[in-house]
């Protein structure tokens, strides 16, 4: 290569080299930054504990003095020896970002609320301690999730983790979290494997989310108890199921099938098929489903897929059947807006939505929704709610443990008993099962067109105890046969 003129660097390449070095420095900064903050906050040791003493009354005074400082500087709080680092795993970028954003917003709202009250009382310090939120991006990928978990537990060294979305992503990050021994309240996973797997120590994890089989079971129950009496009181209900080819879709369907068999429900699954994640064209699949002549078509997918199935079925193919109950993951104002008239009479199997709520938690949720909307300009989604609750559960567990010792917090989580928060739970009491799983109380709504606002609005139709109306059928409904 002697005498090759190209060996000399051009100016552009020099610029690039500089950029490269800057990137590497940024990488270094990325590693160092969170550790630094962790170190500096520990420097001040509180002496307030002596003067305040112990007990409930003392805490109140602390709260009041703190409230002043909180509103003025928000971050600085001299009394506490350190802050509680609470980590959130979420998707800030990539195709799952729409859901991740909701989670992040609810998370920040909860942290702000708790800090505005002065933080969390930790017995060990004898004072209230502020929360420091640390958010890491799962990047809608396996590599991203693993890296995010790694940064949370080993760089930021958080005390507790909440959130996390994706049954395909979170299990890959679990070994890291278990190894580091950090308690983690999982909210965005529908596969029970995260708490039942045996290759790692799962005592660090609790799952605050209805798992897919439970969703599937209640879909079957809605069909059997609310839909069948209206559509086919004297024969089995004929159901076609189209589900997403993913752990989530498969889990839902498995749950549906299981309870039909177990309880011998009057349901015939006349057509079952899967579709790929982010599918947009369902016409061939729907044609096949319609050829089996069902009463009901149940699409199980994310929001975009569900809207596409119902619109293409009603509008393009003229399949005049009942649609749903669809997955709770569609719940957002965009669903009610974009689904449009085609979605009238379709059902959702749910635990929370923007325009409906379980009567037992209605007040709390309304208050939360108002705050959320004021803060972010949009309404909260179901994933946001579970993260919001999870922050409060984390706080409660730390209070119960009275320490930031991770093993004790994890133990306190497992033994926690507390009143339900925003999401309705069976019996109104949050108490994790021995596996570490807490389910939600699921119910069913039907969407009815509201002429005044020109949008769909929900009516609760199942279970009987809270139903506002019976299931209605479209005027041109064609029963199966």
């Amino acid at each position, binding site marked *: 290569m002697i005498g090759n003129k190209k060996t000399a660097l051009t100016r552009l390449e020099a610029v690039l080299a500089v950029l490269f070095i800057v990137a590497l420095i940024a990488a270094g900064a990325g590693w160092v930054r969170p550790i630094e903050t962790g170190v500096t906050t520990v420097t001040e040791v509180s002496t307030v504990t002596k003067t305040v003493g112990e007990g409930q009354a003392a805490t109140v005074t602390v709260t009041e003095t703190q409230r002043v400082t909180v509103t003025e500087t928000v971050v600085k709080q001299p009394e506490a020896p350190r802050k509680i680092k609470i980590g959130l795993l979420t998707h800030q*970028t*990539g*195709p799952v*970002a*729409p859901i991740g*954003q*909701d989670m992040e917003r609810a998370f920040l709202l909860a942290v702000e609320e708790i800090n505005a009250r002065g933080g969390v009382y930790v017995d060990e310090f004898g004072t209230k301690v502020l929360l420091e939120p640390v958010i890491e991006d799962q990047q809608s990928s396996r590599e991203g999730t693993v890296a995010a978990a790694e940064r949370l537990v080993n760089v930021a060294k958080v005390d507790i983790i909440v959130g996390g979305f994706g049954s395909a992503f979170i299990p890959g990050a679990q070994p890291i979290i278990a190894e580091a021994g950090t308690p983690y309240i999982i909210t965005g996973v529908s596969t029970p494997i995260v708490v039942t797997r045996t290759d790692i120590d799962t005592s660090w994890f609790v799952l605050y989310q209805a798992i897919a089989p439970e969703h599937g079971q209640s879909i079957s129950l809605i069909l059997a108890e609310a839909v069948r009496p209206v559509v086919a009181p004297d024969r089995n209900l004929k159901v076609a199921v*189209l589900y997403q*080819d993913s752990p989530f879709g498969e889990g839902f369907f498995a749950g549906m099938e299981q309870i039909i068999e177990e309880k011998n429900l009057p349901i015939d699954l006349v057509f079952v*098929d*899967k*579709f*790929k994640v*982010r*599918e*947009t*064209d*369902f*016409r*061939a*699949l729907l*044609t*096949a489903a319609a*050829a*089996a*002549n069902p009463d009901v078509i149940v699409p199980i997918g994310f*929001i*975009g897929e569900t*809207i*596409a199935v119902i*619109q*293409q079925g009603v*509008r*393009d*193919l*003229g399949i005049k059947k009942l649609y749903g109950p669809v997955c709770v993951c569609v719940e*957002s104002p*965009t669903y009610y807006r*974009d689904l*449009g*008239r*085609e979605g009238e009479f379709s059902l959702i199997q749910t635990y929370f939505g923007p325009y409906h709520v379980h009567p037992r938690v209605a007040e709390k949720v309304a208050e939360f929704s108002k705050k959320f909307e004021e803060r*972010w*300009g*949009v309404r909260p989604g179901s994933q946001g709610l579970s993260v919001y609750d999870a922050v409060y559960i984390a706080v409660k567990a730390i209070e119960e443990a009275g320490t930031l010792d991770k093993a004790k917090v994890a133990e306190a989580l497992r033994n926690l008993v507390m009143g339900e928060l925003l999401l309705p739970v069976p019996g109104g009491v949050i108490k994790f099962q021995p596996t570490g799983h807490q389910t939600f109380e699921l119910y069913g709504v039907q969407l009815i067109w509201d002429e005044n606002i020109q949008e769909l609005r929900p009516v609760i139709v199942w279970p009987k105890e809270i139903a506002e109306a019976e299931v209605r059928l479209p005027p041109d409904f064609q029963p199966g046969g």
Partner: protein
Amino acid sequence: MVLDAATITRIIFWGLVAGSIYTLLATGLNIIFGVMKVVNFAHGEVMILGSYVTFYLWSMAQLNPYLVIPVAMLVVAGLGMLIERLSFRPIKGTSKINEIFLSLALILILQNAMAVVAVANLRELKPVLISSPFRLESIPLGPVNLPNDFAVILSVTALVLVGLFLVLRRTGFGRRLRAVSQNRTAAALMGVDVERMDMISFGIGSALAALAGAFLAILAPFDPYSGTFPAIKAFAVIILGGLGSIPGAVMAGFILGLSESAAAFLLGGVWKDAIAFAFLTAILVVRPEGIFGERG
């Protein structure tokens, strides 16, 4: 499963409809390939750019969405030319894989830039769609119902393709463009400004992608990430048809649409993409240069 004549008609019909949308995307890619011999893997993101521009124009102007599509096409064509000038031209002639690499970088930039804008405007990133005024109307055609939206989309697609064909065949500009795509050096020697042709072809390709994007936005909800897979399928279409051949792309588009439709019906939705690609493989094994491709 009941397999009657009406059902079969429906499957074929919807396969053709799906095919026509691939065709639009593929034709754009093909024009770019013909002239520049590059493949822009970020074509799908350009398409979604078209969806978003149409969506914003539509929600701002409160007009019939079909009326704002030409404006969106112009905007996206301009952006496409900018992309060509800033990124593809500098690496031209280095290596084919460099183009893929660059496309992947463009995908990152475009997807996330669109996400930033969407979050700034809509405050969230949930999939959105454009609600056309005809969305609930349809024309009955025997066993199938042709929704009005599809009637418009199919006829616009046909018009655009025929118009493009005429421009390429009958005008001086079209001749210059074809000259560049047949022999770049010779065209340059004959006084054709080949770099200008590159930019224009990229602009046309992007405008066609924007049109496809606008249609997509009317038919189904979209978000910044909806473009990647359709674009790769469009790429499969031009490979199947033979790189650079427009009739090949049209035909391959319909073949792909039909095979997907049939696969989804007969084997299930999971196999839709897999069968489409298996089909592609089978055809390429027999004819390595694609159906209409030139041997050599």
